[in-house]
């Protein structure tokens, strides 16, 4: 099975169409549109980008300035993230060797803004994999600040990734205030982050009991693309959640929505 899967993957990766598309990334040849961010420019191919992003397609084709000038300028995002997104459109992957945590966080939010769920999922996956390799850097704190800065109350895959790491290492983080001074400082400034930690803990304590209790309801897991693809999954409404009518957590393992 595994061998067959691998060979199918290889075959897919070596498909002439894919190779052709990949070779177009960063290639001015045949390009028909320009994208710009922080002064950096990409000549891109609408035929590649537009079918994958409805938002960008509307911008390219519409009667707005972007449609007339044939140029799209990104604002409020960093060029690296844009580069990663464009790279994804051509190769279904992007490189995250440098500044890994923050890049992944930014790509994740860029993907969310442009309604590109597969890229968001990919970014979450990459984020959680690099956090599991080394979580204790200052990147974690930076990431927490960024995430809660952009969207303090919302629910997102990035948050889940970060919270998971924090919960896992909570004892260590709390026990050494000196070593983790940045973390402590950030916690003090970010009440919604602390609330999420608390709710998460309570959830952990009660999850087994809840799973047996009558609160269990089968609901479509809206935020979790993979869960949705698997069909309705049982969602455990924690007592807090049911009271506030928020915070539905998917119990099917990693809330980062990576398939098993």
């Amino acid at each position, binding site marked *: 099975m595994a061998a067959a899967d691998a060979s199918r993957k290889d075959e897919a990766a070596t498909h002439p169409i894919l190779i052709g598309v990949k070779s177009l990334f960063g290639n001015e040849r045949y390009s028909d549109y320009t994208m710009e961010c922080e002064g950096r420019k990409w000549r891109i191919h609408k035929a590649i980008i537009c079918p994958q992003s409805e938002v960008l397609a509307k911008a390219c084709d519409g009667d707005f300035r*972007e449609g007339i000038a044939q140029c799209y300028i990104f604002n*409020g995002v960093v060029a690296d993230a844009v580069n990663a997104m464009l790279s994804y459109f051509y190769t279904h992957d992007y490189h995250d060797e440098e500044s890994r945590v923050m890049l992944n966080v930014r790509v994740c939010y860029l993907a969310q803004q442009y309604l590109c769920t597969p890229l968001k999922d990919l970014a979450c996956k990459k984020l959680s994999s690099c956090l599991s390799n080394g979580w204790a850097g200052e990147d974690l704190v930076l990431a927490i600040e960024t995430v809660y800065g952009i969207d303090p109350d919302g629910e997102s895959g990035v948050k889940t990734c970060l919270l998971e790491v924090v919960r896992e290492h909570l004892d260590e983080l709390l026990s050494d205030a000196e070593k983790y001074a940045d973390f402590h400082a950030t916690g003090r400034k970010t009440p919604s982050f602390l609330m999420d930690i608390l709710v998460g803990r309570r959830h952990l304590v009660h999850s087994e009991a809840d799973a047996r209790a009558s609160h269990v309801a089968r609901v479509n897991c809206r935020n979790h693309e993979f869960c949705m693809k698997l069909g309705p999954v049982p969602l455990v409404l924690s007592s807090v959640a049911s009271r506030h009518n928020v915070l539905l957590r998917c119990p099917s393992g990693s809330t980062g929505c990576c398939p098993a």
Partner: protein
Amino acid sequence: MAIHQQGLANNDIDFNEIWGVLEKAFLEIHTKNASALSFEELYRNAYKIVLKKKGDELYKRVADFEERWLAMHVRERVVNLLTPPLMMLDSVSGRSLTTTAEKKDSGEKFLRELRGAWEDHQVCMSMLTDVLMYMDRVYCQDSRQPSIFAKSMGLFRDQILRKPARAEMPILLDILTRIILDQIRMDRDGETIQTHLIKANISMLEGLYDSDQEVEDEKLYLTAFETDFLATSADFYRSEGERMLRESDAGTYCTHAKRRIDEEGDRCRSTLSESTAPKIQRVVEDELIRHKMKGLIEMDSGVEYMVDNDKLQELGHVFDLEARVDVKKTELTKAIQKIVMEMGANITNAAVAASATPTAPPGATEEQAEDKSKTGAAKVNQVTVAALKWSEDILALKDRFDNIWRQAFQSDQMLQIALNRSMADAINSFSRSSEYISLFIDDNMKKGIRNKTDAEVDSTLEKAIILLRYLQDKDLFETYYKKHLCKRLLLNKSQSISVEKQMISKMKIELGNSFTLKLEAMFKDMTLSEELTNGYKSYVNKLGDADRTRVDLGINVLTSMTWPLEAFRGGAAADEDQGNLQIIFPAAIDRVKTGFTRFYNEKHSGRKLTWQTNMGDADIKATFAKAGKDGKPRTHDINCSTYAMLILLLFNDLPAGASLAFEEIQAATNIPPSDLARNLQSLAVAPKTRFLVKEPMSREINPGDRFSYNENFKSQFVKIKVGVVSAGNKVEGDRERKETEKKNNDSRGYVIEACVVRIMKQRKILAHTALLNETITQLSAQFKPDVNMIKKKIESLIEREYLERVEEAAVPSYRYLA
């Protein structure tokens, strides 16, 4: 708390600021100034708002903005085009105040403006939707709101279409519907209209829904327009149909109706909605066809006129029309059946009338007419002519409707069944059809097929079979056919025996083996008789006494049950019992008779020969003293009936100048008086064969008349044939017919009894109705049994203890008694 509040306040300021940017941009979009706007900026701002959980506020603001825009800018522009000609549409008097051209023009202006407003709205909303995509995907889906596009379409409906145009006025949607209907009316009246304008407005109604739930079958087009459209159209076509029935002819009506149906279909495609096509066509079909078919068919220029004048194409149109609405083509079928029945009845009446008219047809019967005693015969002949005409006319009728059926009715099966049924009815409603059809065949066998090719003969026979196929009383036909065939065979009247046999084999195919069994037996008798005659000749030759004076004999030996010999009895002879009278033969003849009887008995023992002296003919060589040139004796070959021969032989032995009285002749021959009278009429009255002189000279033969040898007989011919009055096959007299019918009924009685017994023997116990049905089914191939007759026969079978009633049965039933 204070900090918290400030946080919210900050957000509010944020929101208003961002909304300000968006609102300004939306205004630009609505005023068609979008080219300077940045999609990225608008999208990012809307995204930010939604991310800050202000999606609902944004949604509401956008909706409010659109509502205001529609109410303040768009509605006014549209309403301004409701010019007086349009607003006078609803009052009846208003119509006359404005010309069609004005109305059309104003209507088009209005439609154009509304279309513009709708298209603008859609374009703008689709741009707004683009920049608000994040709100649609995240906020609207989470909170189950309709997309902002759908919402704004609903706003268009509510703000533009559902608002009264002005105070005290109907809502714009009603006005729009009325204007479109008015334009369609103009289109139907032949004006050229701007179909694309209507189409655009119809598309708008198709894109809008009755409620925000956007239920698929509650499109405004369906709820607000289509119903009205169908109702108005029904009115229109109802009155148009009535007017056309009054003022036009049926052919035009058909073409028009068909054109209208096509037009409405085309109109739906070009101007309205494809989905309405079947509905409106149904309305037109209802109003112009279904409800008017009867009226159309019964018009002066309707189906009857079309049939009378062979308007095949128009009949085809009528068929097409009714076929659209009724697979059975009920009205047309009824009408055609009625016409066939009427025409059939006319043919029958004509035949009855022709046979009753006393005037003799000129030419053919003129020479007979001079002999007053033959007027009766001429009349009979006339009836025969009528019978032949009847058959030809019925065949022509069938041909005519077959042609109509093929060319106009597309060989439709329903109509074929109906036509067959009416043809059968037309034929069977005439009580003498069996006899007439047999006579038709008889005439063709005797004369009709002369000088015809095989193919022509075959088609003639086929025609006879066609008639036969429709005939119900096949048994009665068999009786007549046997009778007619009998005469043809015995009197050698048939043109060709092989054609006769061909006919029989055709009947065999059509009616089955049992039907032709007896007919075939007759042919067999004929063949055997020929062999017998030849055998007798050689037998006589072998005897060696080559007696020159010996009479030659040709004989037909007929099986008694097979041959309807009563056919030869003249009408007057019917009441006499010939069997008891022994004809007296002269010695020469008697010798031949006994000679043959001996010969026959040697061949077949135990058979009784009965001599049918009333039949047969004789060839006599007669010498008349002054018949030749210059008064010299001359010998003539006379062909006459057996009776005539017997009479003439009496005068051979009479001394010259002597005479015999009628009574004396009868006593000497024993010929029945009526036959004797007829033969004497031929021999002493008919001018060309007046071998005898009658005293007193008169046309009628009366008792006491005296007859003597006509010495002065003269004829230019060597061969003379003495006419035999009742030789041909003619229509029966009333009495004959009654007799035939009675006989037929008697034989039907036996057939029914046999059938009932056969059924009961098999079933043992059977309910009354089941028995009746079974009997009728089994006998239908031969004739249509009379129910009362079956009941009588059942009674009679009970009396004779073949059957008994089952007392305890719930329904009346019978049991078979072995």
